[in-house]
């Protein structure tokens, strides 16, 4: 598709262009008139991990670094950065598990070195089990190697990296600062998005024009929606997002354990137990800290939040140890869970080696909950619009894939834009963006489907399905190569 503004561009900016595309961008010439909007090549709404990763990728690439880019976020981006002197005794309750593929991408765009490394915890093993039948699967790269292949000491042992979301965004913001060249509108809301007008000198009729709360208007050659699950950009583009609510809430908290974990500080283990109400997961953070993600019914989430710290700690310990019948009763009493759980612990056979060590402390103010949803946009692209991250899809947290999918989207969109720039296409055209949609849609859809099915499979409390799923889990556990395949998929390909 030919660029739409060649004549005007030459008229407006006769100076030597930095790249082929920047010929057609207006630099500051067009904004001289108060009524006409400031024109950008890429406007990204939303400064979360996905949006920031996209902008960093664009600024980092020599091909796309000439694009004029803007970032808009309703929050104060500087405030959401990790303080330099943050103590290792307290962690944010919003943590994510970054797959090796996501970390590789962050390294490539130069952001990883800006992260606070002492607050990142790689883990080497994962224990997942069925809360009804106790069938168990353990993941580590050593047991998952292909048949008859010798053990390779050089093989990486890390499954994924636990990192606070605020650390990820801080790293990306740090890298963006270093690269420079992003017009940042922080603490600025998007008041409206509408299509431009076909003025005499400038046809913006297919361009999204954003009106900001500070009175500015921006025209976007490509508008990127990284603005979360209720994306205004998606609504502007008229893209439907379909799916369902799980009727479950995720309860999160930052916890302090008895010690560094069963494998010591060098071999950290992530745990997840599937209860019929939803999985409970304990993921390692540096030192004795851990982060909790407990998917449960809204009633139980409210109950957990209302408990005293002592009872809350006991309930988390019980979540990994006691029977579903006990847990049901414990959620029905107003208080005194700790005492009740101490008694039940004596009569429940527990293999301490296979479950996380006891929680001894919950960090004050970190117990929070949020509703769980499954959503998938019909498409990720529209005319001059692309969606990344939660704006495109929302996933159940049981596989820890949400943030990684957003990173994958950002990397794929950068690649697509690079290709469009190299081949001289209009980066906002549907044709140029098509590659992004086809790269990501099927992959994300498969992951959403698998995670949704897992949720459904483990929501069953009794009957033959419990037996079958336990058999299946044990079978996969016994088959190293098959397990390796699943681990590769979860690690983001490779």
């Amino acid at each position, binding site marked *: 598709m030919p660029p739409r503004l060649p004549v005007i561009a030459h008229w407006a900016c006769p100076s030597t262009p930095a790249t082929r595309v920047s010929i057609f961008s207006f630099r500051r010439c067009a904004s001289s008139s108060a009524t006409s909007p400031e024109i950008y090549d890429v406007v990204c709404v939303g400064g979360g991990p996905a949006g920031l990763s996209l902008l960093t990728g664009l600024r980092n690439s020599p091909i796309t670094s000439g694009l004029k880019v803007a970032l808009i976020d309703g929050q104060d981006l500087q405030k959401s950065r990790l303080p330099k002197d943050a103590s290792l005794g307290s962690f944010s309750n919003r943590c994510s598990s970054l797959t090796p593929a996501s970390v590789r991408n962050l390294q490539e765009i130069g952001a990883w070195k800006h992260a606070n490394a002492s607050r990142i915890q790689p883990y080497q093993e994962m224990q997942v089990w069925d809360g009804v039948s*106790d069938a168990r699967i353990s993941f580590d790269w050593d047991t998952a190697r292909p048949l008859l292949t010798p053990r390779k000491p050089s093989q990486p042992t890390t499954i994924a990296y636990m990192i606070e979301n605020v650390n990820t965004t801080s790293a990306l913001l740090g890298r963006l600062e270093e690269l420079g060249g992003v017009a940042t509108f922080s603490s600025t809301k998007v008041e409206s998005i509408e299509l431009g007008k076909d003025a005499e000198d400038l046809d913006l009729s297919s361009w999204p024009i954003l009106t900001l709360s500070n009175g500015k208007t921006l025209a976007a050659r490509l508008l990127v929606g990284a603005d979360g699950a209720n994306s205004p950009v998606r609504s502007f583009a008229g893209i439907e997002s379909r799916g369902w609510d799980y009727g479950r809430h995720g309860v999160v908290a930052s916890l302090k354990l008895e010690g560094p974990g069963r494998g010591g500080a060098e071999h950290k283990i992530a745990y997840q137990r599937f209860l019929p109400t939803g999985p409970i997961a304990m993921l390692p953070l540096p030192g004795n800290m851990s982060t909790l993600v407990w998917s449960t019914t809204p009633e139980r989430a409210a109950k957990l939040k209302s408990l005293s710290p002592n009872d809350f700690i006991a309930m988390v310990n019980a979540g990994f140890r006691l*029977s*579903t*019948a*006990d847990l*049901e*009763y414990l959620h029905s009493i107003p208080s005194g869970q700790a005492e*009740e759980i101490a*008694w039940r612990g*004596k*009569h429940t*056979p*527990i*293999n301490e*080696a296979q479950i996380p060590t006891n929680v001894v402390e919950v960090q004050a103010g970190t117990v929070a909950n949020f509703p769980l949803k499954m959503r998938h946009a019909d498409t990720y692209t529209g005319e001059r619009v692309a969606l990344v991250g939660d704006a495109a899809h929302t996933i159940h947290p049981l596989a820890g894939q949400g943030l990684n999918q957003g990173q994958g989207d950002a990397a794929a969109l950068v690649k697509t834009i690079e290709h469009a720039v190299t081949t001289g296409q209009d980066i906002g055209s549907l044709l140029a963006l098509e590659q992004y949609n086809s790269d990501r849609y099927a992959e994300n859809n498969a992951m959403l489907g698998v995670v949704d099915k897992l949720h459904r499979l483990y929501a069953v409390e009794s009957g033959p399905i419990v037996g079958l799923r336990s058999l299946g889990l044990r079978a996969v556990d016994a088959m190293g190569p098959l397990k390796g395949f699943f681990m590769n998929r979860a690690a983001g390909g490779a």
Partner: protein
Amino acid sequence: MAVSLKRPFTATVSAAVRSTHTSLSLPASCRCFSVLNRPPPNYEGHIPLTRVERLGLAAGSGLLSFLDPRRGDLIAAFGEATAQPYFIYKLRDRMLLNPTGRRILRDRPRLTSTSLAIPRLRQLPSNTLGYAYAAWLDREGVSPDTRAHVRYIDDEECAYVMQRYRECHDFYHALVGLPVFREGEVALKAFEYANTGLPMTGLAVFSALTLKKAEWRRFWDIYGPWAIRNGTKTDDVINIYWEEELETDINELRARIGIEKPPDLRTIRKAARDKKKQEKEGREHAAASAV
């Protein structure tokens, strides 16, 4: 022996077992051992069985107790061999979901003639559960001390549940007023099956096939339907703390758990017998007058 299931002891035993033999913390169905290499018991009196042994015990004790229903020991063994896996755990879970059931599991009370102080029960007002229970014991000529100890249930807590079910059996009799001979026992077993879900109680209903024709008809018309209806709709009888209900009005207790008292079996049988006798006398009389 009465203390064998008390908590402190078993807790220490199972804790020791847990720490030394990790394989023991697996569910019973996963365990592998042979007759020559039997693991240590999980509680005093426990006899760990292999799957083959368990099947054999179930088949043997089932067959023999069908042939001779007065063999309480065989019925007890049959109950234990068939309750595991699954059923006894489900019954325990139902106790765990109920505040009173949990209290029973915590206290682990044992029902014996000494713990119940039977003579004191006889002094209670006649509308109380305690009085009805003592009266029932006297009428049927049985004692609460005749209950066998649980041996073949692997989990120590589930073993207590089985013991509790067994010891409470007489209270179920008193609650519904059914006698101990075969006809009453079959009706009560049907009720228990609908209420507790233990396979032995369900299988015991098959002994209804050995009933006499008139008894069979009564079971089919009156007691069977009563048992199913009441067993399913009443609260779990395993969750009644009998020791605390001894002075409760028995009708109030029945109303609370939602159970209807079936027609008195002894009265029906007596009426049937009298009728038969009258008919017989009538026939003899007629025959005599004809001569």
